[in-house]
C-alpha cells in the first residue's frame, strides 16, 4: 500500500493493518509466474501447431493464417468455458491463460453465458463485453496513439 493511502488511516487502523498483514497468506508470485509461463507457453504451442496446420494443408501464408488460427483458438476457449473447464485452468495458470486470445474469448463468453437469464438483448448483448469492453477500448486507443506516433515519424520525420 502506498504511503499516500496510509496517511488517511487512523493509527488504530494502521496498527491493525500491520497486524493483519503479518498473518495474511500472500499470493505465491514466483510460483504463479512459473505456472503462467508454462500454461501460456502450452497455449501458444497449440496455436502454433494450428497455424502450421493451416499453412501446410490449405492455401494460407504465414500472414493470412493468423485469422483462422485465432478463430479456432477462440472456438476451443468457448467450448472449454461452456463446459466449465476454463475457469479451473485459469485458477492454476493465472496470467498464462488470461493473456492469450483464449483468455479474451473466455471473458466475452463467460459474461454472455452468465447474463443469458436476463434475455438476449439486455442480458447477453448488454453484458457480453462487460469485462472485455475495456480491453477493446484501451486496445483501440493504444493503436490510435501508436499510429499517430508512426505517422509523425514516417511521414514528417523522414524515417
Amino acid at each position, binding site marked *: 500500500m502506498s504511503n499516500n493511502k496510509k496517511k488517511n488511516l487512523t493509527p488504530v487502523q494502521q496498527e491493525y493493518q500491520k497486524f493483519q498483514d503479518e498473518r495474511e497468506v500472500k*499470493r505465491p508470485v514466483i510460483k504463479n509466474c512459473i505456472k503462467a509461463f508454462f500454461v501460456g507457453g502450452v497455449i501458444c504451442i497449440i496455436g502454433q501447431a494450428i497455424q502450421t496446420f493451416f499453412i501446410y494443408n490449405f492455401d494460407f501464408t504465414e500472414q493470412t493464417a493468423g485469422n483462422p488460427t485465432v478463430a479456432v483458438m477462440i472456438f476451443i476457449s468457448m467450448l472449454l468455458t461452456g463446459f466449465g473447464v476454463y*475457469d479451473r485452468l485459469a485458477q492454476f495458470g493465472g496470467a498464462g491463460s488470461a493473456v492469450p486470445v483464449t483468455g479474451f474469448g473466455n*471473458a466475452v463468453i463467460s459474461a454472455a453465458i452468465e447474463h443469458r437469464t436476463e434475455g438476449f438483448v439486455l442480458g447477453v448483448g448488454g453484458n457480453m463485453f462487460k469485462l472485455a469492453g475495456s480491453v477493446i477500448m484501451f486496445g483501440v486507443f493504444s493503436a490510435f496513439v501508436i499510429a499517430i506516433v508512426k505517422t509523425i515519424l514516417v511521414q514528417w520525420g523522414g524515417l
Partner: protein
Amino acid sequence: MGWSMMLSGHRTWLFKNEPVIVSTGTVGGPFEARGKIPEDFDLLHEDIWLRQDSFEKAQKVLIEEACQKAMEKGGVQIEQVQFFLGGDLINQITPTSFAAKTFEVPYLGLFGACSTSMEGLALSAFIINYGGSTCLMTGASSHNAATEKQFRYPTEYGGQKPPTSQWTVTGAGVALLKDKGDGPKVTSATIGRVIDMGLTDPFNMGGAMAPAAVDTIEVHLKERGIDPSYYDLIVTGDLGHIGREVSLDLLKKHGIKITEEQFQDCGLMIYREGQPVLAGASGAGCSASVVYGHLLNRMKNGEFKRMLVVATGALLSPLTFQQKETIPCIAHAVSIEIGGQKT
C-alpha cells in the same frame, strides 16, 4: 418479568424468557454435499440450478425448502408461523422476499451481509421474548453462482483467486422459534457495531471482518459479565483461515483467555480438505446452514451445552469497491444454550 432489565450494558439483550429453537431446516448444493458435513443437511441438491432457469430463482427455492423442512420437523403448519425474518446477499434481497411471497407470512427483510443469520436470530428472540410472537421463522441463504455474479466475475470467467479468497456457500438455514417447547434456547444477543479498519481487498474478507468479530465478542463477554470459559464453543460465521487466526491473536493480545479448540469458524467446518475453497467458506448461508444444521445437531447430541455464535458480515458492494471505498464490517453474537442458563 423484569422488562426493564433486558438490556445489559449498551448493546446486549438478555432473553430471560428463553425463546426456543424448536426445529431447523438446512438445504445445500452439490459442493456442500461433497463437503465435510453432508449428513447435517436436511436436503442436498445435485444441481446448482435446482431445476430453475436462473441462479436467483434457485436461491429462492433453497430458502423455501429450508423453511418447509423447519416447519415439517417442528410439526408446524404455515398458518401457525406468525413472522418470517430473513435475508441474503443478492440486490434488494429478492430471493428471500420472493420466498416470503410464496409463504404469505408477515415478513421482515434483513440485510447484514453474512451476519444476517444472527441478525435474524437476535431479532427473532427479541420479538418472542417480549411476547411479540409465539412462533416465527428466521433464516439466511446464499448461492455460490448468484453471489459470484453479483459481487465478482461471471461464474465461468477465468480469473485467478488469491489464497485469501473464500468460497461462497450454496445453502440456506432456517430456524423455527417458539416461546416454549423443547430444544436449544436463545439466551442473549449482542448487536454489532460497524467497524472499518481501512482494508480494501474484497478477496480478503476474513482479514477485514476479524476486528468486528473481536469487538462483538469482547463487548458480549463484558456486558454479560462472563468469562470466555462460560462457553464450550465460540464460533464465528465465515472468517476463514486468515480471519480466524487474526481474531484469535487479537483476542489473546487483548487478554481474553480463549483456547484454539474453543474458538472455531463455520467457514472452516463445511468443506473437506482438498476442496478448492482457498481460505474457507463464506456467504450468508454459511453460518446459517452450519449453525442450524451441524452445530445444533452436535449440541442436541450432548457434545456441548453452550455456544456463542458470532456471524460476521462485510458490508460492501461492488460499487463501493470500485469507488475505492474501504470495507466496513459487522458481527452479531447470539448465545444458544441447552438446558437453560447457568447462573
